[in-house]
């Protein structure tokens, strides 16, 4: 109970601090939300994206699940995506992974975790698709980081293929899709692919991902 109490305490302190500088702050945000970003990230507690990017309340629409998956059968994600794209008209959709991701690690190993193994099937697919490249990486840690990157790129591709994004693109180059990764070790966000706003850019993305197998 001590921990829970702390939440309310912190909350009161924060509100007090904010309203001291800007008394109208919360009232202003009670109206319509017009976020520019949809963030699709991992549920991991070490990725506090609002804090990391310094966005204010009302600026970012957020969806988080284990290992930042974009699966075309996930009604939760699709609802978030549809609402963000068609109603909130967000300009940017960001898929963000992070190193030391437990979900990715689980997908790479042989251990059974239960239900979550179903959820992670996509990552195992990605691993087998890039098996040759991954085998060539001797260092386990580097291989782990590479799978995190590949997972993000795969999810950006999945995102681009959803009818919601396809329909939106037919109307204009919006939303732009971005793939990023957060390095838990130093706190920096690293870009993997930026400004995917058409099927041509998706093809380029696939091409570069495939070519990187050689390195």
């Amino acid at each position: 109970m001590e921990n829970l109490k702390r939440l309310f305490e912190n909350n009161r302190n924060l509100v007090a601090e904010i309203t001291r500088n800007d008394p109208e702050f919360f009232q202003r945000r009670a109206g319509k939300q017009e976020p520019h970003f949809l963030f699709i990230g991992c549920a991991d507690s070490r990725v506090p994206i609002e804090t990391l990017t310094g966005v204010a309340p009302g600026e970012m629409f957020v969806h988080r699940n284990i290992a930042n998956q974009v699966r075309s059968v996930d009604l939760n994600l699709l609802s978030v995506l549809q609402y963000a794209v068609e109603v909130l008209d967000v300009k940017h959709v960001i898929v963000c992974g992070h190193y030391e991701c437990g979900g990715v690690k689980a997908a790479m190993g042989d251990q059974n975790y239960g239900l979550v193994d179903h959820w992670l099937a996509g990552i195992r697919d990605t691993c087998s698709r890039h098996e040759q490249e991954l085998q060539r990486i001797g260092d386990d840690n580097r291989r782990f980081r590479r799978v995190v990157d590949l997972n993000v790129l795969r999810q950006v591709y999945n995102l681009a293929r959803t009818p919601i994004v396809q329909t939106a693109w037919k109307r204009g180059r919006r939303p732009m899709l971005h793939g990023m990764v957060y390095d838990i070790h130093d706190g920096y966000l690293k870009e993997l692919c930026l400004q995917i706003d058409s099927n041509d850019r998706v093809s380029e993305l696939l091409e570069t991902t495939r070519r990187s197998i050689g390195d």
Partner: protein
Amino acid sequence: MATGWRADAPASIVVFLVALPLCLGIALASGAPLFAGVISGIVGGIVVGSLSGSPLMVSGPAAGLTAIVVSAIATLGSFPAFLAAVVVAGGVQLALCGLRAGVIGYYFPSSVIRGMLASIGLILILKQVPHAVGWDKDYEGDESFVQPDGDTTFTAIDHALHAIEPGAALIALASLALLVLWDKTALKRLKLLPGPLVAVLTGVSINLAFSLVESTWTLGATHLVQLPIASDASTFLSFFTLPDFSALTRPETWKIALTLGVVASLETLLSLEATDRMDAHKRESPANRELFAQGAGNMLSGLIGGLPLTGVIVRSAANVDAGAQTKLSAILHGVLLVLAAVTIPGLLNHIPLASLAAILLYTGFKLAHPRILKAMWGQGWKQFIPFAATIVAILVTDLLVGISVGIAVAFAFILLDEVRFDCFTVTSPPGAVLKRVQLQEQVSFLNKASLAKLLASLKPGERLEIDGSRCRVIHRDVLEHMADFRLQASERGIDLRLVGIDLPPPPPAH
């Protein structure tokens, strides 16, 4: 065909009986020889009836044209010169047929047509009341409020009621009673003996009875049908006048011909629509073929000394009412006019106008039945106001002016609807950050206002997407408005996105 004959032959007799005084009356009102009206009726029946595609419409001399005819004869100086214009007017109608102008008929709003029919009914009642009581000063078939004799419809009724001819009134009442009796009882099934015919025969009998007992109630010639009687063949032939084609060198002739051709075509198309509306089988008559038939009819009528003709509503209504099924009835009524003019003019001149007035009164009552008024009221004010406006305008002016007023009112309502109704549907949920609208298939000039209103309602910072990908047509003015707005939108911080809309290049600066 046997069933056709059984229904059409009796109907043709009724139409003939109604048509005869109308032909004479309209000729009188037109300032033309009386027989010109009969010729026009004959051609309208036989020639137009044969060529026309309409099963029920009757053609003949029209009250709606009398004003034009009177002034045309005065302008051209002679009746033969006018006949040349009638021939050319027929040519104008053939040309209109060639131009497929018949489609105009489809744009007469239904409320106006119904209003016209109802007002024709009222006119019949109002104009025939004087005839029914023996006040036969105005010509038969007048449809104008202000009559040639200086009276108006209402003052004429007033006069008539102060000078009732008891004989005429009795005949009219008896005829009317028989008509109602025939219509409302099993007697209706006597197809070979239609009510109107019974009414006429009764009228003739009553008047003969009056004269036999030398009653003061006996109706004189002025209250009876007056067909010119030829004593011999050469006199009969002299009733036919040949056109004077030297008039064609004068520009006025052509102007009159054009006016006649256009007005007669309009009146025909109106009558055609109205007659189709009365048809129990709801048959649709081909409009362009009708223009051809009318053109041919007018050319012939002009060539042999007849008045210009059009499709006419009263006779058509009487035709429908008498149970006609096919155009045989209209053709036969023409044949009967010929036979009557040649063989029994003396006999026909025994028919009291009061009997005919009773027939027209009853037809009028059916056209202007309160049931129709109630039905139109039930259709809402957008239908009722043009309907009522048509009736009032026709009653206080004349048919063509009244129709024009009615059409103007109806079109105003139609345009109002077009202007008011949005040309787009909002496809985004309420409160969406991006408001998304889908344009309808056709965006006309009239939709500009609703779109302009939508654009004008945008505030800085708002986002609107207009999806025109389903449009087939967007009027250029609407496109230009969107193009203009897009320029100022970016300045005002409005996010306007156009999907599937090709904007025209900006017009050159002045």
